[in-house]
C-alpha cells in the first residue's frame, strides 16, 4: 500500500526524522495561507499523487512570492499529471504540499527495502541524491553502499558509520545521519514497511539534515495490525475496478489487449496471458479468482472483465486444486445467462471434479467453446478475434 508524501512526512515527524516545515492544501486559498504562516521568501508547491517523476511532469514548482504560491497551486490542483509512471492518461492532482524552501549544501539518497537476495531489511545510501537510483547504480556504483540488518539485533551504529562514510558526511553530521537512520529503521519495522525512500536527503548550510522528499510503501498483508496506516489509504489513487475486484476477493489488473482472462492462481494467470501473446493475441487483463471460488465469485469475475469495453472474447482457464470444477461451471452458466454474454467464451477446465464440471457445461445448452489444454484455449481465443477481423 502506498501513501502520499505529506502523509509519509507526518510519520517522519512522529519518529523525529527532520522534514521541512509545511502543510497540505486542497485549494489555492489554503496554499496561500499556509505559505503566509510559514513565512520566508521561497516555497515549494508539490503535487500529491502516488507516482514518481512528479518534478519532470510539472507537478513540483518553486514559488518566490506569495502570489506565485497561489498561482502555482491553482495550476497544479486539478491538473492531470502525466509522468513516466502514470501512462498517458495521467493522474488527477487533488492536493498540494506547500513547504518552506531552505538553502541546500548537498543532496544524498537514503532508502530501505526488503532485499530479496538476503531476505532481510537493507539500507541503501548514495553520495548523490535527487536522481533516479537505478540510473545511479548503473553509472556510479562507487558512490553507493548497502547494509543489511540482522533482525535479531536491528540496525547497529557501526553500520550507520559505514554508510555515512560513503555519503561523505563528516563531523556533527555523522551523528545526525546515524540518528535519522536508526529512527527510520524503527519506523520501517514498527509499521511493516516494504520500501522507504528519502530522495533527496539534504545537508543544509547550518549542518542540519532534512528529508526533502519522502516515499513509503507498506505491506498490505500487515494492515490488520496497523489501523493508523490503514487510515492513510487513498482510494482515489487506485484503479476503481481493481478496488472493486479486491472487495470480491479477486485480483484484477487492467492491461490493454482484447482477450479477457479469468484464471485461478497467479502463476497460471500469467502463463495464460503469455500463451495468448505467443499465439499473436493480446490479453486485456490479469485476473486471479484465487482458491475457494464460489459461483458468485465467478459471476463477479465475468462482470469485471466485461466492464472493459476493449474485451472481445473471454478465456476462462481453471485448474482446480482447492477449487472444484463443478462449482466453477455453475458460476459460468449463471454468469453467461444472467449477464447475457454474447461474445465468444473459451473454457478450459482441469483438476478436481473436472468431469462433473463439463457435464454441467454441456447440459446447460449454452454457446461456448471447449478447450482441452492451455495452448488449445489460447489458440482458440486468438482465433475468435482474428476471425472477427477477417
Amino acid at each position, binding site marked *: 500500500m502506498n501513501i502520499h508524501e505529506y502523509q509519509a512526512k507526518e510519520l517522519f515527524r512522529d519518529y523525529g526524522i527532520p522534514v521541512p516545515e509545511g502543510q497540505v492544501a486542497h485549494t489555492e486559498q489554503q496554499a496561500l495561507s499556509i505559505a503566509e504562516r510559514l513565512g520566508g521568501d521561497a516555497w515549494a508547491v508539490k503535487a500529491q499523487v502516488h507516482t514518481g517523476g512528479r518534478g519532470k511532469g510539472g507537478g513540483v514548482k518553486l514559488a518566490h512570492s506569495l502570489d506565485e504560491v497561489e498561482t502555482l497551486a491553482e495550476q497544479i490542483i486539478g491538473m492531470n499529471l502525466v509522468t513516466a509512471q502514470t501512462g498517458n492518461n495521467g493522474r488527477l492532482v487533488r492536493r498540494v504540499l506547500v513547504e518552506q524552501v531552505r538553502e541546500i549544501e548537498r543532496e544524498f539518497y537514503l532508502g530501505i527495502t526488503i532485499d530479496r537476495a538476503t*531476505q532481510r531489511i537493507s539500507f541503501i545510501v548514495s553520495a548523490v541524491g535527487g536522481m533516479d537510483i537505478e540510473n545511479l547504480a548503473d553509472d556510479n556504483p562507487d558512490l553507493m553502499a548497502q547494509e543489511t540488518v540482522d533482525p535479531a539485533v536491528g540496525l547497529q551504529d557501526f553500520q550507520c558509520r559505514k554508510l555515512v562514510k560513503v555519503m561523505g558526511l563528516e563531523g556533527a553530521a555523522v551523528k545526525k545521519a546515524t540518528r535519522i537512520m536508526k529512527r527510520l529503521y524503527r519506523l520501517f519495522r514498527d509499521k511493516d514497511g516494504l520500501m522507504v525512500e528519502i530522495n533527496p536527503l539534504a545537508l543544509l548550510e547550518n549542518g542540519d539534515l532534512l528529508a526533502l522528499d519522502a516515499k513509503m510503501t507498506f505491506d498490505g498483508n500487515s494492515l490488520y495490525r496497523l489501523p493508523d496506516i490503514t487510515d492513510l489509504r487513498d482510494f482515489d489513487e487506485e484503479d476503481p475496478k481493481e478496488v472493486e475486484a479486491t472487495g470480491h476477493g479477486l485480483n484484477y489488473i487492467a492491461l490493454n489487449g482484447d482477450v479477457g482472462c479469468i484464471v485461478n492462481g497467479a502463476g497460471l494467470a500469467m502463463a495464460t*496471458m503469455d500463451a495468448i501473446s505467443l499465439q499473436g493475441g493480446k490479453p486485456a487483463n490479469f485476473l486471479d479468482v484465487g482458491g475457494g471460488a464460489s459461483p458468485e465469485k465467478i459471476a463477479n469475475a465475468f462482470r469485471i472483465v466485461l466492464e472493459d469495453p476493449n474485451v472481445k472474447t473471454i478465456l476462462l482457464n481453471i*485448474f482446480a486444486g482447492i477449487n472444484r470444477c463443478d462449482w466453477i461451471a455453475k458460476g459460468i452458466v449463471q454468469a453467461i445467462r444472467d449477464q447475457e454474454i454474447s461474445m465468444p467464451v473459451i473454457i478450459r477446465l482441469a483438476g478436481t471434479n473436472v468431469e462433473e464440471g463439463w457435464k454441467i457445461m454441456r447440459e446447460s445448452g449454452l454457446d461456448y467453446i471447449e478447450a482441452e489444454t492451455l*495452448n488449445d484455449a489460447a489458440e482458440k481465443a486468438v482465433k475468435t478475434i482474428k476471425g472477427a477481423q477477417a
Partner: protein
Amino acid sequence: MSILVNKNSKVIFQGFTGQHASFHAQEAIKTGTPVVGGVTPGKGGQTHLDLPVFDSVHDAVAETGADVSGIFVPPPFAADAIMEAIDAGIKVIVVIADGVPVQDMVRVKRYLKGHDAIIVGPNTAGVITPGECKVGIMPEHIYQPGRVGLVSRSGTLNYEVVEQMTGLGLGQSTSISIGGDPVNGCDFITILKKFNEDPDTDAVVLIGEIGGQQEVEAARWAKENMNKPLVAYIAGVTAPPGRRMGHAGAIVSGESDTAPAKMKRMAELGAHVVENAADIGRTVHEALNNS
C-alpha cells in the same frame, strides 16, 4: 526415493481442527499419507479424524515422533506456528497460508538459523511425493510416481505442468511449490540441491516467474553443481512493470526482473528454457532422451 517427504514421514497438521486443515488432512489420509495427528491449542486430548489432537507441537512430537508439519493457521498466526514447529524439532514445515506479513518471514528466517529444518512456503500449494505422502492442497489424482523433480513458485502452474508430464508418462519423484512471496521459507537452490542428491530423480523442472533473481541464481548453481538436466520456465512475459501480479513477490522492479531477461540469463547458464508453458512436458521428455 524422493525428497522432503515419503511414506516413512510422520505428518501432523497445525490448526488441525479447522475447516481447511480437516478437509486436506482427510484427502491426504485417503491416499495413504502417514498422518499421525494434529495440533490445536486448547483442544489437546480430543480426537479428530480418528487421530489425536495435541495442545502444542512439542506434545505432538513427544507422543508421535512427528517430523513433518502442514501449517493451516491464518496468516497473522503463521510466524508463531512456524517457530513453534522449528523449536519442537520438526524437519519439514509446509506453510499454506497466503498473506503472511513479509517482515514476519524475515524474523522467522533469522530464527531458523542454526536449526535443521526446511520451511516450504508461505503461500504454497505444498509438497507431494506421489503415491507416498502429500502435505498440501493439490489435486492428488493428476500426479504419478516417477523420476522427474518439480519445483515452482505457483501452485496452479505446477498442476498445469504435472498434467502435461503425467499425460506423457513422465511421473514425478517429488513436486514442491516454494510459494509466491518475496521472502520464501526455502529457495530454489535448496530444493535443487536435494534433487541433485536424490538417486531417484533424473531431471528437474523449475517453474519461476517475474520478480527477484532467485531463478537465475538457481540456474547458476545448477551449471556449477548439477549433473541432471534442468528445464525452466518463467511466467509473466506480458506482465507490466511495477505491478504486483497476484503473488506478493511477482513484481518487476528493474530490467533484470523481467521474464525475458531471466529466461535469457538462464539459457546462457545452460538450462533448457521453455518459452511456452504448454511445451514444458515435451521439453522434459526431450531433455531426458538426450541426456
